[in-house]
């Protein structure tokens, strides 16, 4: 049966088993919305209040499910509003398919009404993007988009479809497979390298795993746990690497990097073999590259060859799917030295340098987080915005299952939290979703509270209001003589009242003795709820390694 392009888009989504579509209409995509209205059964259309929110929501959905988040927007401003969301997903390797409408092909290049060169604009922040100029290419392009988004190192793919292509008709046929000579992600690690790495482990005295986001992306968290338990090798993790949870809890040391723990950073600086799994060695992890892990031979496993040797020289590069490599290491069943002395050393370091804070009269964010962690169920999904609270969440909210810590790591996008929480809840309706946001980032996308209400999503939100753009204020405090330029948020509205107006249950907290009760209510609420917590204004995040400084200089005050 011949079909219109607009209908083909909908049928492709069904073939890809898309159950949730984050979409916002406009002139050129009306035909797709029309087809969704008539034939969109099985696809939940979620309409954000802003396309950026829609894109972050799709991203949150993808982070917790591993399935691609799917976005549909109109041309011009609709398309450009997605760019921040796409860039956020790109740098964190999140699979996403963004379908944008485009002006009709004969208008492309004429500065027509609502024309924007979105394939040009999104070029550096997409894994692939495609302008479809022929109806015959439409279904194959969507197949290509979904395949590329999820395979190899995942990432966002944008498909730009001009209106005339949506109105043209052709026979609908969805390609069974996608096969392209130039696109063959590596799957298996080179056996020689895999064996060599294992050999090095048998010779190590103080080996350490550096767990990155690639572990959960490749679905290898269980394997990583098994690997750690089997060989007794301890691990530290990055912001994206939350979720490892070996049976032997002593093996999970803590986080590392700019706001990493003293003992986590110490472990890196004192290991003799660093087994880096699915990490890009970002500058937030490395600090000064020269003095990073000075005594260690470095093994680096990543599916993306371009990550190897990019930011740091490594001794044993392994390009391949982490799952395959870990399987091989576990299967090999090698005799390992006993690393328990090294693990005890790390545990001692941990006991000697606990994360601390001095809870006084004003509520501290760390206290709120520790309490929330006690009161929420263990399989909670934590979603953060960006700033100080994100780093405290990284420290105080170590999650023990994969895909449970949702945070904009690479781009550090303020405004990510609330919409990503929406996507996370839609992806995992049976789990509690708790969004932590600062008063700055919250105000960037707070209109999405309306979406939460409209979609009846029981998302829980804590706004930690310190009356400042906290993280920037901290840098000004530490490195710019406390000249608080452009960071004061002294006219914040009452967010609890605001939430109420928008139909969301809420409470405003100022006193320490209100915290526990309110958090308990938040955790138990069967509907969405927001806590506006007035917190200490000038608390700083420690430990901290100044930008570009050595991990040896992990400051605790």
């Amino acid at each position, binding site marked *: 049966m011949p079909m219109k392009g607009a209908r083909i888009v909908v049928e492709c989504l069904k073939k890809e088993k898309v159950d949730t579509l984050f979409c916002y209409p406009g002139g050129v995509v009306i035909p797709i919305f029309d087809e969704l209205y008539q034939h969109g059964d099985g696809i939940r259309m979620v309409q954000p209040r802003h396309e950026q929110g829609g894109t972050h929501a799709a991203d949150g959905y993808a982070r917790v499910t591993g399935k691609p988040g799917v976005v549909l927007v109109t041309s011009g401003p609709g398309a450009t509003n997605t760019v921040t969301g796409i860039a956020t997903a790109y740098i964190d390797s999140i699979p996403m398919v963004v379908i944008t409408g485009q002006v009709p092909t004969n208008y492309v290049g004429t500065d027509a009404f609502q024309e924007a060169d979105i*394939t040009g604009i999104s*070029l*550096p922040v997409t*894994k692939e*993007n495609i*302008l479809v100029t022929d109806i015959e290419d439409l279904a194959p392009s969507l197949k290509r988009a979904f395949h590329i988004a999820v395979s190899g190192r995942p990432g966002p793919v944008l498909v730009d479809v001009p209106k005339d292509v949506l109105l043209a008709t052709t026979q609908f046929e969805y390609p069974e497979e996608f096969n392209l000579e*130039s696109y063959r992600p590596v799957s298996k690690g080179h056996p020689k390298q895999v064996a060599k790495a294992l050999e090095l482990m048998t010779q190590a005295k103080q080996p350490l795993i550096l767990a990155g986001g690639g572990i959960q992306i490749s679905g290898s968290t269980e394997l990583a746990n098994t690997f750690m338990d089997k060989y007794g090798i301890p691990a530290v993790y990055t912001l994206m690497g939350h979720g490892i949870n070996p049976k032997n809890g002593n093996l999970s040391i803590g986080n590392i990097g700019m706001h990493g723990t003293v003992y986590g950073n110490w472990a890196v600086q004192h290991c003799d073999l660093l087994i880096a799994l699915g990490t890009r060695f970002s500058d937030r992890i490395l600090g000064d590259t020269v003095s990073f892990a000075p005594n260690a031979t470095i093994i680096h496993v990543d599916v993306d060859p371009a990550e190897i040797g*990019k930011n740091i020289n490594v001794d044993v590069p392994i390009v391949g799917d982490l799952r395959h490599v870990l399987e091989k290491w576990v299967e090999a069943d090698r005799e390992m030295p006993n690393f328990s002395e090294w693990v005890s050393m790390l545990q001692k370091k941990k006991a000697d340098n606990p994360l601390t804070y001095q809870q006084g009269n004003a509520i501290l964010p760390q206290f709120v987080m520790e309490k929330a962690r006690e009161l929420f169920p263990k399989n909670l999904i934590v979603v953060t915005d960006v700033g100080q609270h994100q780093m405290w969440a990284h420290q105080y909210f170590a999650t023990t299952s994969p895909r449970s810590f949702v945070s904009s790591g690479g781009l550090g996008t303020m405004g990510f939290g609330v919409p990503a929480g929406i996507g996370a809840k839609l992806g995992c309706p049976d789990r509690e979703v708790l969004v932590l946001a600062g008063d700055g980032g919250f105000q960037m996308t707070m209109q999405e509270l309306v979406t939460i209400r409209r979609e009846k999503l029981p998302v829980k939100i804590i706004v930690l209001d310190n009356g400042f753009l906290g993280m920037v204020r901290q840098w000004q405090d530490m490195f710019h003589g406390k000249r608080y330029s452009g960071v004061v948020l002294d006219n914040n509205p009452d967010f609890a009242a605001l939430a109420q107006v928008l139909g969301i249950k809420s409470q405003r907290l100022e006193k320490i003795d209100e915290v526990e009760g309110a958090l308990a209510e938040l955790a138990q609420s069967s509907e969405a709820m927001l806590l506006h917590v007035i917190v200490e204004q000038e608390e700083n995040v420690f430990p901290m390694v100044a930008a570009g400084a050595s991990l040896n200089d992990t400051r605790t005050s």
Partner: protein
Amino acid sequence: MANTKLSEHTVSVLVYNKPGVLSKVMSLITRRGFNVESVSAEKTSGDKTRIIVAVKADERSLEQIQKQLYKIVDVIKVTPIDPRHKVVRELAFVKVKNASGLPNASNMELFQLVDVFGGEIINATPSGFVFQLTGSRDKINSFISLIPENLIVEIARTGIVAINKWPSQDS
């Protein structure tokens, strides 16, 4: 980018001839902070195009460019051109004014120069000439540097094409 020892490197990139692929390749190279010295592109066979790019980079960054290029979905193969076994050619047109009557220059000298460099005079009028030259970038650069600047009206260069030679039998 902390570039330590910069030198010119040439890479040959085979791509599917899709809309936008040239801009994807170029934007990737410039975005990662590399200076493009020369670029040429032409359809080679069927649905494929070969892009030849010369960039200033150190060894390590060069490896990074190659790996990043492979991440473009339509890039089929990236071949670095080995400086020891390469053939490199560029074609240039140089449009110059008639030098007769000018101090410090003569048409005779210009023609001799063209001859020495193995070039051709492909257009001659009372107003001036167009010379054509092929050769390495260095050769063309030095040809141009020898022509008095005030005579040069316009220069058009193709950018280099390059290929790795067959390995020699005895090495």
